């Protein structure tokens, strides 16, 4: 068994009073391997949380099948639950009157853990997130970010194999986000049977953490690949931005002729210095050498040059934007 999670043709319809049935998921399939951090990306209302809820046995699917470690989430939920933890961001969950320590201990008991083992793990993870000193604080005295860290620790203390993270860094400051991301990455690497499903609106977070991401919109998966692959697929050409001391339209024509078919050059001006700036879109990355030689031959001096890397955000926007256009006529009832 190499797959930790298998999702096959998942659909979910919500019946809302007074409106037509709403199709939140319309046939979602993917699988997640052991050792993987798998990202679910998509705009608001795409169906990410719905998918996570079904995978974590909070919600039943309308049709389709999900297995976690080989167990069916619909029928064998009692086998699935001890193996998983769910951590949702942006909520204020917890018994306000309990201290951090009491709250975490209580949840460990719901998993039948021995108290000394639980205490040791609580100490370990509270130290990792830098909250050991706050262990005697009441939950309702904590800030959003601190609560989110406690929430993460709650999920980790019970030693799950699968971690479901629904926007884990929502409302959390930069430093805490960095800590949370580092913990998640270290955690999954610690043991081979672990895996993580992550949803996020931060593309950089997905790019940094995920070995694969699925882009989902209107309950359908539009793409499922490694972030690097998605960026590459976006555009196979290489892009450069070159600022020069002087350059005119006539020189541009000459150089365009030299570079030949498939390579586009656009002349503009640098926003800050107002120097001429050339944006080059090259079919082959290696053509950059020819371009620089040609520029030198024209007597232009390079002031600054950088390669424009496509981001996951570009890939995301292009894919989601395209789908929006496709669907304009067949507009499904959105809430």
């Amino acid at each position: 068994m190499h797959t930790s999670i298998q999702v096959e043709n998942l659909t979910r319809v919500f019946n809302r009073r007074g409106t037509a049935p709403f199709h939140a998921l319309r046939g979602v399939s993917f699988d997640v391997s052991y050792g993987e951090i798998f990202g679910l990306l998509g705009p608001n209302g795409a169906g990410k949380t719905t998918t996570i809820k079904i995978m974590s046995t909070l919600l039943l699917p309308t049709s389709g099948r999900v297995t976690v470690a080989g167990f069916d989430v619909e029928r064998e939920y009692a086998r699935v639950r001890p193996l998983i933890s769910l951590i949702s961001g942006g909520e204020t969950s917890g018994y306000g009157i309990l201290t951090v320590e009491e709250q975490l201990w209580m949840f460990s008991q719901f998993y039948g853990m021995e108290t000394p083992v639980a205490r040791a793990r609580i100490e370990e993870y509270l130290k990792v997130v830098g909250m050991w000193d706050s262990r005697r604080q009441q939950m309702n005295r904590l800030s959003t970010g601190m609560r989110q860290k406690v929430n993460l620790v709650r999920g980790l203390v019970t030693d799950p194999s699968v971690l479901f993270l629904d926007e884990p860094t929502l409302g959390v400051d930069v430093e805490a986000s960095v800590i949370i991301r580092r913990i998640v990455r270290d955690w999954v690497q610690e043991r081979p049977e672990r895996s993580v499903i992550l949803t996020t609106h931060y593309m950089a977070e997905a790019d940094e953490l995920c070995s694969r991401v699925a882009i989902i919109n209107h309950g359908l998966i539009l793409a499922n690949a490694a972030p690097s692959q998605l960026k590459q697929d976006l555009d196979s050409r290489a892009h450069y931005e070159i600022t020069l001391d002087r350059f005119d339209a006539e020189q541009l024509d000459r150089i365009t002729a030299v570079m030949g078919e498939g390579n586009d050059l656009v002349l503009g001006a640098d926003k800050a210095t107002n120097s001429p700036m050339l944006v080059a879109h090259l079919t082959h990355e290696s053509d950059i050498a020819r371009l620089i030689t040609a520029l030198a031959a024209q007597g232009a001096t390079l002031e600054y040059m950088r390669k424009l890397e496509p981001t996951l955000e570009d890939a995301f926007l292009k894919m989601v934007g395209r789908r929006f256009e496709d669907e304009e006529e067949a507009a499904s009832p959105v809430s």
Partner: protein
Amino acid sequence: MKGFLASMYVGLQIESNWTKKWVWLLYLAAYPIGSFLAVIILYGVFGQKTGLLPYALYGTIFYYSLSMVFFDMAFSVHDDREHYQTLKYIFLSSTSYRTYLCGRAATRYLIALAGIVINLCWLVPVLHLPFHPNWGYLLAGAFLGYLVAAGLGLAMASVFLLTIKLDVDVVDALFGGMFVLSGALFPPTAFPAVFAKIAEFVPMSPFIELMRRAASGQVLTSFLSGMSTSQLLGRVALSAAILFAVGSVLVSFGSRQAQRKGYIDVTTAF
């Protein structure tokens, strides 16, 4: 078992953690008084001749031990879901939601019993209540009473799992109705025969009558007087078993249905 104890612990913390321990003990003692006071006034002032004060007072006291539990069950579903937002995490844990609810019910029941004991300490001498306890029956009754309360509580909880808005009026009306019908306050035999018949089958009434007899050492009215105390105990055991079984089935059904509808983590507070 660990889950059960942890649930009792949460219940206790939620109940008591808002104040110092001694203030809480005082509160524990004072809390039930409100419900007894009305009975004392009602019978003490208007119905002195009837001699029904012990009947009504014991009835109210032991009804209180049950009603506290199922009131609490209804609210705990709602509060865990909306207020603490922990319901989904409890649901997803290795402990079944039924076990969790039983733990919460146990805490509430023990707190109610503690309140009763404290209050009996002054009610008995001050009001000259008959008090010749049969400890065996009292203990057995108290244990079975837990099952009755938990069974009804589970049934309550399953309803509230599937109700998004907590309608307090409905809960109040329900408890008020059961209060009257269970013969806690008036002997149902004082009403037309139909009511007396209904009252016999209200699930709490045998428990309440058993506790009355076990505490006072007397058969106070003709209600259920056809039964010996040991028969009554059997009857309570039977109703406890049935209620607990029905409650368990309902909560499994309610959980599944809530899972289907997506009600386990809904919040209405925006």
